[in-house]
């Protein structure tokens, strides 16, 4: 069902050229630093990722992911430290636990759960981040644009 709904939305450009919009919510200490590292090393990736910084991935509420997808993001990445490396001891574990529930909820709501990814990127893993984004873009090109693109205007807060 989810896939059908998404295909109806159609794409505006040939799939190879279409760059999906990915919103990232990154923890400050590992993943945001890792993204900085990818920049410092000039590791080229598809121009699709925009990053919102939080101090710890523990701060991420499931609603943040739903809101981003509802607003028309083609994919959402929540990126944390590796297990055992959290600057705040255990914040990432809380996120690890939330992630499967978020995926399940997305599925039930008819949104392809592949649009949401939880990844671990340490401060030195710019190359890994580049690989993750490149791969995610490929996957999103297969899935197609977000079905919410042409729906309502952004939620008013």
């Amino acid at each position, binding site marked *: 069902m989810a896939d059908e709904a998404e295909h109806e939305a159609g794409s*505006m450009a040939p799939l190879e050229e279409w*760059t999906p*919009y990915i*919103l990232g919510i990154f923890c*400050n*200490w*590992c993943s*945001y*630093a890792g*993204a*900085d590292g*990818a*920049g*410092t090393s*000039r*590791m*080229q*990736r*598809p*121009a*699709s*990722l*925009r*990053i*919102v*910084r*939080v*101090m*710890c991935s*523990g*701060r*991420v*509420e499931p609603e*943040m992911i739903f*809101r*981003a997808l509802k*607003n*028309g*993001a083609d994919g959402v990445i929540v990126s944390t430290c590796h297990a*055992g*490396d959290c*600057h*705040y*001891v*255990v*914040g990432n574990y*809380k996120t690890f636990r939330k992630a499967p529930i978020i995926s399940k909820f997305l599925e039930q709501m008819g949104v392809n759960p592949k649009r949401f990814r939880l990844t671990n990127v*340490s*401060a*030195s*893993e710019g*190359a890994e981040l*580049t690989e993750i984004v490149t791969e995610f873009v490929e996957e999103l090109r297969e899935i197609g644009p977000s079905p919410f*693109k*042409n729906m309502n*205007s*952004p*939620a*008013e*807060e």
Partner: protein
Amino acid sequence: MSEEIQKASEPTAVNITGLEEPKVGVYLCHCGVNIAGVISMDELEAYTKTIPGVVKVTQYKFMCSDTGQNLIKDDIKKGEVNRVIVAACSPRMHEPTFRKCLRSVGMNQFLFEQANIREHNTWVHMRQPEKALEVAKDIVRIAVAKARNLEPLDVMTVKVKPVALVIGAGVAGINVAKDLANQNFQVHLVEKTPTIGGHMAQLDKTFPTMDCSACIITPEMSNIGQHPKINTINYAEVTDISGYVGNFHVTINKKPHYVDQSLCNSCGGCVDVCPVITENEFDEGMKDRKAIYIPFPQAIPNKYTIDMDHCIQCGLCKDVCEPHAINFDDKPKKIELDVGTIVVATGFDPYDPTDYKPYGFGRFENVITGLQMERELSSFGPTTGKPVRPSDNKAPHSIAFIQCVGSRNCQVGMHPYCSRVCCMYAMKQARQYKEKHPESDVTIFYMDIRAFGKGYEEFYEIAAREYGINFIRGRASEIYENPENKNIVIRAEDTLLKRPVELEFEMVVLSVGLEPRKDMQTISRMVGVAQTGDGFLMEAHPKLRPVDTLSDGVFIAGAVQGPKDIPDAVAQAKGAASAAASLMARGEVEIEPYFSKINEAMCSKCLSCIDLCPYGAISFDKYEDVVRINEVLCKGCGTCAAACPCGAISQNHFREKQIFAMLDTAIPVTANGKI
């Protein structure tokens, strides 16, 4: 308020309460060509002007420069803007710079937001300028959404204890400890082995000056041992570090010596009677020691230790020990310390070539490592400074050095980086051997000679011209043993003559590289400092903050940060000491006030936040029936804010309305819907 943390009052010459209508000023930085070379700044400016809430957009080549900062200050003073966005590099780079800029004109520094259009955009989308411009617009728009919802916050300060912990007492750790102690700070120097000195104590001479290594390091070691401000804790390991900048709590496990260190008078009577013989680690297994031992004669502290892995507890030493220092019932001791700063100087491990089969280390007797050669050359080493080959204990007539063993090699188990010291130490050892045996034939198989330091190139010139050392440019592909005389045959390609060579040598020295210590991951997690891809600890910034780490109050020095020769390790040690001292001398440090706050009226007292908090900062007062958050204990992760089902908890600077405002404007709206 506790006495550890107090709110510093902010001078507010510019009266901004955070309640007035936000007037956002956006400052677009070209960063030379780093940003402007990829995207059109004019188009970005034109777009930024259309974002609601933006009142002023300014471009400048380098916003972080004085002139750039003055542009911001002038606008604030004129009252034109009350929220500032700089679209430039990462906030991890220059957020402190611009916050200071706001503060200098009396504006609350937390009304600032940085849009990262360099690391996250122009540097990673260099070949797609049009798409990069779209991403830049999004990033700026997201930052404006955050800026419009920013609130002024008070800066918090914490006291810094004037006590430092130095982990590792090699040449770097010793210099950190010395510099800090000379500035009158109490220093606890923790060393894993029974003696301080590290790898430098194992070396015979140092390049390029050919100074005697022991003559340099042993007086330093002795000074450290006697310094009133330095507490040396040898034969001990740090097992746990908790707390935060200025107030770390450290747990140290002091291993049992089985010899009372206060009673032992180092007479050595016990060594004569000890029947157990085992390998001496200090001599890289080239010489034996007893189960009761001092690693080397100049060790500090110069007291005996029993190696319980090999001791058979026969009790002979106990019988001969006049001061009755032997105690087989010695137990590990737990030491707890409170320190303000931590310097990690745990050094490196030499690469172990056993796993690299083509070079036959461990199979062929006459293949040794550079560090073993160093011990052979040392006057207090296994051969008292007269190198011999292990198979027949005769001085070899020909020696080959093979460079880049474990370094500059992408095969599994090896390292792609250059270890920086092997070219020089191989040439040094070659010269030393030539001095002792001028008639001998010494050859170095190299890929490139990297003689980059002060006086290094000259050292190389002399080695090649005056000492007559042969240099063959080519990596040895294979080594095999001549079974008759145990000589070693090297097969390689001479890439300058473009022909294969096969040469026989009486001994081969593998110039092994430097690698992160085996226990690096444990250290990394304990001190909260990430490892870089090569496994060494990561500095806060490779150029500007080489001794700082992203864990405030934790500094790194020496080869723990990457392969280094002695001058570089000492330079970094002095840098780390100065960085730690500047923190302790000031006595207090500012921390970001990102703690969580609770709205008691909205709280339903489900108490789910209490279990989630890793710091025990949230408590339930059952008499007053309220949940409270301790601002001192809270480190500002925001996990409780995310979990609160009532939305009663909010995290400063990462409030719900701030994050959702960003998410709601993140996706651009175009004429025919969103892109």
